[in-house]
């Protein structure tokens, strides 16, 4: 059975077969991306709207490249140029764009549930490119793609996800997909970002050593230094890196061929020391970026075909 929805909102909606379908297609597109002529005509004439209500250069660029490699007309709609600042509701904005006969919305929004909300109000495809603290399914899929390339299988893998679990959409999407695949997951982070993490049904670690020990892959989450919430932050960056940061020394606890992933951009010296971040034998951050384009091409391919019943 292939994935049959016109949207990709949550990795909870993906079966194991769906994930492999996406990864196989991503492999095909990754090969295409290595050619001189990097284009597929698949989405010729299709209009893809990168609707970014929250800033993100990386994800937006990755989606834009993916959409253009598939020959679609990709346009960017960013919050700064959006009329939501003028009081227009999200639904009105979407309806307005939609009336220009667009086909696919790539949605980034600061509100959890926003992608689902938009999807329930539009006949177009909706791809969740990150909704608040909730999910970021294409990021999880590119993480899985990167892990799969390295290990050739998901069997008996142990993955640690470390950092601000509470606010991480990357963590949630990864947890759901990895649980579907039977991957063992360990979680660790500062206590104020780990409260209620038991809801995910993963192993909760008590310190960095335990979190890293025996892992095949370690996903280091980005600490949102720019977050200006009402929450009391951790004491200092220095202290964060000491108790929750990953250094080469700590990596010794992991399995010999263990790899590191990070959704980027890295806060050097905070969650990741440069000695690990720049070691290409363990750090897979740049392959993640490369794989991101292929994964997003695969998703665009699948949801558009589902929309058109192809």
């Amino acid at each position: 059975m292939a994935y049959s929805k016109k949207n990709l909102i949550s990795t909870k909606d993906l079966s194991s077969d769906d994930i492999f379908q996406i990864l196989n297609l991503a492999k095909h597109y990754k090969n295409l991306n290595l050619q001189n002529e990097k284009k597929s005509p698949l989405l010729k004439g299709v209009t893809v709207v990168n609707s970014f209500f929250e800033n993100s250069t990386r994800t937006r660029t990755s989606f834009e490249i993916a959409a253009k490699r598939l020959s679609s007309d990709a346009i960017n709609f960013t919050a700064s140029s959006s009329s939501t600042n003028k009081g227009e509701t999200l639904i009105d904005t979407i309806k307005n764009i939609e009336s220009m006969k667009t086909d696919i919305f790539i949605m980034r929004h600061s509100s959890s549930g926003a992608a689902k909300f938009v999807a329930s109000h539009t006949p177009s495809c909706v791809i969740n490119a990150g909704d608040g603290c909730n999910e970021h399914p294409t990021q999880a899929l590119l993480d899985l793609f990167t892990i799969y390339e390295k290990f050739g299988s998901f069997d008996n893998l142990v993955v640690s996800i470390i950092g601000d679990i509470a606010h991480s959409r990357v963590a949630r999407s990864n947890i759901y997909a990895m649980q579907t695949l039977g991957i063992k997951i360990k979680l660790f982070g500062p206590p104020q970002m780990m409260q209620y993490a038991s809801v995910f049904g993963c192993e909760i670690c008590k310190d960095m050593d335990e979190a890293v020990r025996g892992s095949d892959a370690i996903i280091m989450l980005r600490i949102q230094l720019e977050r200006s919430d009402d929450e009391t932050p951790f004491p200092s960056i220095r202290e964060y890196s000491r108790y929750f940061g990953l250094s080469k020394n700590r990596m010794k606890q992991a399995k010999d061929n263990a790899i590191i992933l990070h959704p980027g951009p890295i806060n050097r010296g905070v969650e990741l020391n440069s000695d690990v971040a720049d070691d290409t034998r363990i750090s897979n951050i740049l392959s993640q970026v490369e794989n991101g384009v292929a994964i997003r091409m695969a998703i665009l391919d699948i949801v558009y075909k589902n929309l058109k019943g192809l």
Partner: protein
Amino acid sequence: MRTLIKNGMIINANDSKKANVLIENDKIVDITLDEPKADNIIDANGKLIMPGLIDIHVHFRDPGFEYKDDIISGSETAVAGGVTACCPMANTNPVNDNATITRDMIKKAKKRGLIDLMPIGAITNGMKGGSITEMGEMSEAGCVAFSDDGLPVSSSDVMRAALEYSAFHGSFIINHSQDCSLCRNGHMNEGLMSMKLGIKGMPREQEEIMISRDMLLAKLTGGHIHIAHVSSGWSLKLIETAKKEGINITCEVCPHHFTFDDSYLEGYDTNYKMSPPLRTKDDVKAMREGLRNGIIDIICTDHAPHHLDEKEREFDKAPFGILGLQTLIPLTLNLVRDGVISLNKMVELTSLNPAKLLKLNDRGKIEIGYLADIAIVDPEFEYIYDENLNKSKSKNSPLLGKKLKGAAIKTIKSGKLVYDFPNVVV
């Protein structure tokens, strides 16, 4: 003008009996097994005759936000829910923080004449949390209590003064219990569900901390603190302790807090977004236990209309609050059906105790000499609560479009028939 309600089952807080109720003008003049002559006869066979419900916590959005509801539509919604008296909160625009506004509100309600409107005045001027309002004059104008509901009174000193001063005028204080320093911009209950959904939560401790403070201030001042919309099990433990210690404290719960838990938020439906938020299944259980064992004094709705444009938004951008007046009876009857409370207890919680709290000694009972405020309730009647039945200008109820069981099929206010299911007669 005489009306006879015959063949119904009269439900009072202390007993139930089958008898006919004779109304003359605005009063109940006889309760009898005979059939005295009357101009109107209402056959209430198989129905319950309850004292009109008194809702001490509603938001009618008038003045200032009349597009959500106003005193007229609010009154119509109330009687459609069997409610014959309402206490609207002060968070209007302008805020009900002076006698002139209080008088205007009452006048507007009187003109429509469906319910008694008994406003709750603001505790602080402009609900800004600073200086306290002219509670004496406002009480004279008709304010029955004081609250900055929607917002807590954060300063302990202001709250102390409010308790002392309201007590001097024979009134009391209702606090929206919330320690705002723990709000963290939360949109739902903090817990496993908020973690799962990636929505920022508000811990129940923010409510419990504020209740703790307020019960201590009530102890200090001897003033009467009434805790609005209790939502957590621990809050009830605190209130129980305070009551045992003789502190002047009462509390209320809303139907949504004894009906729904935070798992209903799974689909990010903003109609389940309210403040205080839906808590866990354990808290729902605790609310039901509190109703059963008498720790909770009153059921009220916190009827909080919001326009569709405001509610149909991203979850964190939508306002808090849902409609409540027309779902009060069916949701409370669910407690009776579940064996949590008796019909008599239902009357105590929705009518007699609110009347006592507001010192209305001619209401809350079906009794000779009492005001003829009556809800004739069919507990078995099943219907879809749809847009035709909904009398509010707003539609923010998760129950809209759903099947409900039990309703006021006729509502009588001061001897006048003011609601007839499904059409308002007056």
